[in-house]
């Protein structure tokens, strides 16, 4: 399949009061069309930064990003975005929130109502279109946010830890729903997560970042059948991928089994 996104030598340095912070890169990465690609890495390594760079929502210092061969140098509109929080507006019901995407684009609302309803149905919100965000659980709000990111049929969806703020069970369910949505729509998804199992369950490829400044440590192809049912998730192959990713994390010192003696001392407060 052809590449939708090309990231060539991209670097991001934030200017902060304490001086420049080299947050990311250089990164070289090509993302294929229709691919579900995850980025995992330690906190603060620049995952969100990369996502925003691809969306044209941040400026970068070096390198180039192309989407469909076009240089990214302003906010991209051919995308859908989902954040860790649903970012719905309080004054619109669920259907209205999904259609906000359409209205903001100056498109005809009437044309999209049916589609919005279908999307809501596919994530189990059919009966909740008239409800306001405060009447919904966090998981339901996040489902509505998925619909809002998909209603205009963008070829690319950016997701920044979209399941990160949910409880374990809701999260488990939403992973399944998300894969289902992706199988239906076949969009290119750039997905940031903290969870190794989540990345294995959802992705075609998992990109592991080093600690800040984030660089690509390794890219793992996940060659597992879809949909990734419980049977697949309990398979030896699935566990093998998790094991593989975990050891990469351990090699970087991001994960460890025991606290080292020095750190134990620091925690206890001894010199």
């Amino acid at each position, binding site marked *: 399949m052809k590449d939708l996104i090309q990231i060539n030598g991209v670097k991001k340095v934030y200017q902060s009061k304490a001086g420049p912070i080299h947050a990311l890169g250089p990164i070289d990465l090509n993302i294929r069309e229709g691919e579900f690609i995850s980025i995992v890495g330690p906190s603060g390594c620049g995952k969100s930064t990369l996502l925003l760079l691809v969306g044209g929502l941040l400026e970068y210092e070096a390198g180039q990003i192309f989407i469909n061969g076009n240089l990214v140098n302003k*906010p991209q509109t051919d995308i859908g975005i989902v954040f860790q929080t649903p970012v719905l*507006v309080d004054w619109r019901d669920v259907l209205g929130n999904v259609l906000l995407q359409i209205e903001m684009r100056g498109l005809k609302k009437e044309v999209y109502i049916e589609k919005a309803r279908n999307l809501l149905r596919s994530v189990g919100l059919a009966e909740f279109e008239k409800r306001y965000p405060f009447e919904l659980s966090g998981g339901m709000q996040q489902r509505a946010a998925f619909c809002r990111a998909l209603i205009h049929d963008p070829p690319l969806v950016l997701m920044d830890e979209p399941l990160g703020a949910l409880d374990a069970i809701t999260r488990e369910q939403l992973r399944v729903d998300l894969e289902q949505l992706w199988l239906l729509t076949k969009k290119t998804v750039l997905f940031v997560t903290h969870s190794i199992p989540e990345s294995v369950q959802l992705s075609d490829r998992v990109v592991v970042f080093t600690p800040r400044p984030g660089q690509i440590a390794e890219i793992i192809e996940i060659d597992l059948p879809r949909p990734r049912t419980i049977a697949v998730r309990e398979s030896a192959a699935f566990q093998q991928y998790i094991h593989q990713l975990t050891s990469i994390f351990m090699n970087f010192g991001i994960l460890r089994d025991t606290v080292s003696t020095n750190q134990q001392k620091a925690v206890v407060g001894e010199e």
Partner: protein
Amino acid sequence: MTSLSSTTSSKAGGIFASLRGWFSEARNTILFVIGFLLFWELAVIVFRIPRYILPSLSSIIRQFVRNFDLIWEYTLITGYETLVGFVIAVAIGVPLAMLTAFSRILRQTFYPFAVALEMVPKIAFAPLFVTWFGFGFIPKMIIVFLVCFFPILLNGILGFTSLSQEMVYFSRSTGASQLRMFWKIRLPAALPELFVGLKGAAVNATVGATISEWIGGDAGLGYYIQIATGQLRMDLAFAIIFMLTALGLLLFYIVQLVEKRMIPWHVSQRVSVFGKREI
């Protein structure tokens, strides 16, 4: 009897049903107020509190009725000062809050200045305004304007700058123009905070009018209170205070009514005045 009354009420429908609904919701509040007023009346009688310290409720009502013509005349004067000052504060404060929120230059220059000015006790200017503008309408209106303006401006700025970074990113990704983004997102998002400011201003408005009339007035309820207390007519003073309270409440409820209309979706609107959760 019971069957009769129940059929009448069901036929009368709408208005009575909603009135009864309101009453049943407000019942505890009303009972409390009645209880409080009764306690006042009795306490004054039982403890023989002198009239010039705390008048009884009945004597206040008597004074209110007896002097109603003048009280009403002064109510119109004070009400006019309050309303004009408030409306001008809204008319200038809201657009200025918007400008300040969206202009980096104003945020860096005007905003800190406005925060500092907010700390200035505006009432302290009343004597100055009297020397500048005389005893009439203008100095009072200016004081009302000043005590209303800052809560509106500062809460307005807060409201217009309260969008989360994620919301801004989402908006940008839709390619919406600044104008469309303003109407669809920034303005509605700013309303709850803006109304906090408007309600604060409504509370301040009558206070500003009253005090400015004390300091240099020849008419109005504030002026009248001074006359009444000067003659140790506490019952009249209380009658005027009740009128002032009613005036303040009226302005406050108008703002609240508009708020209810404009942001029924907001958390603040989900708890009714009587403290019962509606949802």
